[in-house]
């Protein structure tokens, strides 16, 4: 994608029928660190890579609880993600208050998509620069949706977004057919393995990933580091003298986020 005369305004069409500003917004999603979602017929697992600006800071929060039965993982401009999460929490709680009943996740994602669409059709707005993996329950079971800045949403059995998500997607494509009947534990294991794919060689440690689960009879919650490490230990050899390598790998990781596109640095606001 190169700069052209039709990309200044979100309300300007290109002669080939494209809205470049919307497409650029979707690029921002690809720059963020990976987020992965998978579902079975009764559970949804959301997992993400924890990226911190430096060793001194804490990592950016990328998975949010929307309600007991809905969670969201984001990639891209996290500030936009936070605002949209707040909107989702608001919609969910308003529905609960009026109807004493959980908001079906399928309806929430439509509200979210319509909100995103508005920003693609106002000259004084810009599209949200964040992709959302929304996992939740409704009457027909567990669902996973992807909402993108264009205002489109799709339902998935499993999906990954953000940088190096293709590696995770390849892994998921090989295994997704078994997910519908997967047990809760297998689903979590697959999520962590998918996260490992995006790390490309870096040793998988529980401190590097955040995993959340929700399901029928199980409200949304995060798995604690111990539980994640236990899972990791079932399939990874405990690394022996690899601390030196890990430290060398970390700074290289930070700069490599852009994957060789125009921008060399990851903008501080994108995680």
């Amino acid at each position, binding site marked *: 994608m190169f700069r052209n005369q039709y990309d200044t305004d979100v309300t300007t069409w290109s002669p080939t029928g494209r809205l470049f500003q919307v497409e650029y917004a979707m690029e921002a999603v690809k720059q963020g660190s990976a987020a992965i979602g998978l579902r079975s017929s009764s559970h949804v697992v959301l997992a993400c890579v924890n990226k911190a600006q430096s060793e001194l800071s804490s990592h950016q929060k990328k998975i949010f609880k929307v309600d007991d039965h809905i969670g969201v993982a984001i990639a891209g401009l996290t500030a936009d993600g936070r605002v949209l999460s707040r909107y989702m929490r608001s919609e969910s709680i308003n529905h609960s*208050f*009026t*109807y*004493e*009943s959980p908001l*079906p996740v*399928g*309806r929430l994602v*439509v509200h979210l998509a319509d909100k995103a669409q508005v920003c693609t059709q106002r000259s004084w707005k810009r599209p949200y620069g964040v992709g959302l993996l929304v996992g939740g329950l*409704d*009457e*027909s079971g567990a669902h996973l949706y992807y909402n993108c800045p264009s205002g489109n949403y799709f339902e998935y059995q499993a999906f990954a977004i953000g940088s190096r998500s293709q590696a995770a997607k390849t892994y998921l494509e090989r295994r997704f057919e078994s997910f519908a009947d997967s047990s809760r534990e297998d689903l979590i294991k697959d999520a962590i393995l998918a996260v490992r794919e995006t790390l490309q060689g870096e040793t998988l440690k529980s401190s590097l990933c955040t995993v959340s689960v929700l399901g029928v009879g199980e409200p949304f919650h995060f798995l604690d580091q111990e539980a994640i490490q236990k899972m990791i230990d079932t399939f990874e050899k405990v690394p022996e003298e690899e601390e030196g390598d890990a430290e060398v790998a970390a700074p290289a990781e930070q700069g490599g986020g852009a994957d060789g596109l125009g921008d060399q640095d990851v903008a501080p606001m994108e995680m």
Partner: protein
Amino acid sequence: MTFTIPIDNGDSVKNAEADSQRTLYPYVTGTSIVAIKYKDGVLMASDMGGSYGSTLRYKNIERMKAIGKHSLLGASGEISDFQEILRYLDELVLNDNMWDDGNSLGPKEVHNYLTRVMYNRRNKFNPLWNTLVLGGVKNGESYLGMVSMIGVSFEDNHVATGFGNHLARPILRDEWHADLSFEDGVKLLEKCMRVLLYRDRSAINKLQIAKITEEGVTVSQPYSLKTFWEFKAFNNPTAGAEGSW
């Protein structure tokens, strides 16, 4: 310096002109509703009368209506407010259907929606002058609840409105039990309705019984109860005190 005293024409509590905008008294009213949970769902009974003060003006008013696929609403109190509520619910059910996504509003959701509406109107001093009974079945679970005009809301195994609270509930407290058959349920409701017929001056002898189960709603054709007036004391009512009526 001159001061203008603001006149708030929207303030319907202190301003007489704005009073025409809010409900002060009911005009055409329906009397009791009685409802019970039974084996397959919920049974509800009401008569078909609409009183205009002490006159029994309308004798063909259906005070129970199906809402969506899973609920049945019965109302006592102002009939025009009941019709307004049916319009709100119509819109609610329509929007729910338009989603076309396999999710649907169950009786619990409808009951809570109505509670919000009734309570909000009460807070604005412009109530919908009704006591509503909401019954339904969804996914095998029966639901029966009530909302009053001031927003008091609760669920129970048997409910009644108006005079039904005083005359029917005591009977139900003694004789209701879980898993009543359809026949027993109807007999129990008819027993309550008979007492109401004798003792509630706004009751008429033309009633309907509605049933809601997992399959849906059926409202019976109107019919009347057998009554007995041949008590000896009725033959010469003033026997004990000649000259009185």
